[in-house]
């Protein structure tokens, strides 16, 4: 009897963990999408979404990561609008000559307010932030199912 009660408690715990982290699972952005929120939220703008896939159709990695000096680190480049209008980083192309110019604010600043800086669908993202909690939940449920037959005996 107590074993089956424990099973129920385990399941309850698992379910509440799922419920708590359900919100985190709602984001299923494109692999490689980067949200950059170094300064946006505090400046009252939506954070930036950088779609890697869209850019790699048009440019080799080398163009941005070598010629333009983008570090391989989400949010690691300390980009601000002054640098962009001076032709650095995004501004090297987004100046109306290679790609559309900076006055289209909403095309980059399009993330949900409050979204933290991160690289979506990356291994480390799956391993740590929301994934860790869901792994805990899925580990709990097999235990629960194992203990139910034990209680019947």
């Amino acid at each position, binding site marked *: 009897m107590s074993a089956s009660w424990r099973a129920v408690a385990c*399941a309850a715990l698992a379910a509440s963990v799922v419920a708590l982290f359900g919100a985190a699972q709602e984001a*299923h952005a*494109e692999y*490689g999408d980067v949200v950059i929120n170094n300064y946006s939220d505090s400046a009252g703008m939506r954070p930036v979404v950088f779609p890697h896939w869209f850019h790699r159709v048009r440019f080799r990695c080398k163009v941005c990561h*070598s010629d333009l000096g983008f570090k391989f680190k989400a949010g690691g480049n300390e980009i601000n609008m002054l640098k962009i209008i001076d032709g650095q980083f995004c501004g090297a192309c987004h100046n109306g000559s290679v790609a559309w110019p900076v006055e289209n604010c*909403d095309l980059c600043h*399009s993330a*949900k307010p409050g979204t933290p800086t991160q690289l979506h669908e*990356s291994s480390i993202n799956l*391993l740590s932030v929301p994934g860790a909690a869901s792994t805990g939940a899925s580990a709990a449920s097999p235990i629960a199912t194992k203990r139910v037959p034990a209680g019947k005996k």
Partner: protein
Amino acid sequence: MKTRRFASGLALAALFAALTHAGELPNAKAVYDANCAGCHATGIAGAPRTGDAAAWSARFDTGINTLYGNAIKGKGAMPPKGGNASLTDAQVMAAVNHIVGLTAAPGAAPPAVRASAKPVETVKGGARVAADVAKGKLVYQAACAACHTSGLAGAPKLGDGAAWASRNGAGAGSLYISAIKGKGAMPPKGGNASLPEADVRAAVDFMLAQVRGELAPPKPTASSASTALTAAASAATAENVMAVSARGPVAHESQDPNAFNRLMVPPGRRNPSPAEDGIHDPSSPGTAQLQAPLRSFQSLPRSNLGNYVNWGAALGKKQIQPRWDARDPKAEATVMDLNIVREVKGSMPDVVFPHKQHTEWLDCSNCHPAIFVPQKGANQISMASIMLGQKCGVCHGKVAFPISECRLCHARQKNAGTRTAEAATAGGEKK
């Protein structure tokens, strides 16, 4: 009579386009993407936008043959064959069918057309329901998603069974009326007065279809929900989550025993459009203007993970032609063809590192010397460090193919004797 013939022609074309869409003839989509989408996806120069039933309805009324004729010969700002004289008439017609298919999926054509199109549609009743929901999805994305994706202004969120259950109590009919006439913060027709009522109903059907598994048929009696998981789910608010969780995590899913699947993204939810991907703000005016990944990916070779695109193959086949220099479209990559074999511990096959595939995308200085010391034996690499974003993991598992594609790196069988070029070329992204 003429409308009637056009209508069945349209329905046939739509069916044909639906088939095309399913992958039978990718040609039409490729022609559309290459020659038509530039204007018809965005509405530049007054082009009627693909999927915008209101803009197309008057044009549909002229008959499919007129549409073919205008597309081939040009009309107003529309250049002959979309400006690409090398297209055959058949290709242009296929592209027109493609647009018709995306805009007027059976059931979404103007009312008169739809009524007479019925004889054809009844043959494929099931297909029509599916097409209605598909059309509803298009309408939803255009007119409803801004509020119903995020729950703005108290709108019931798409897929939120609990929020919809209380509204579905009086049946879909009253939902249609609320959607068409408006109710509370909900503006009539979602604020788009030009939307035909059939489209609004299709959008409601689509939204209801997203919660079908969770909706109890009319009255959700939570108190007597001892057996009905569906009713329990619909009553599951934050306060009584414990009552639900007593049934285990399964209570969160629909009744389909296969529905529980946390780690796999079901095919229908891969490459979501920006408004649905969870990071873009659907209420931002910019979000609606962004290209949906699938629009770009459909003509590219697919893979099982990551973007579900085999980027290496796409580049190899020149299906994408990313620039090597931001300003010079003619600059060519300096490719170095040198394989490095790393013998690894345990039973895993040895790793073959192909410089060739990497130098097609990258400059030497991207990796050397900061990430990899250019010297044999000087680099300690482990899967753990890769998963944490070091070494190969600086790109793989972030933007380059994910680390779960083990065999693309672990490509050379141990004890194979000679280090054959065959094993080496199997490395890197599939060609």
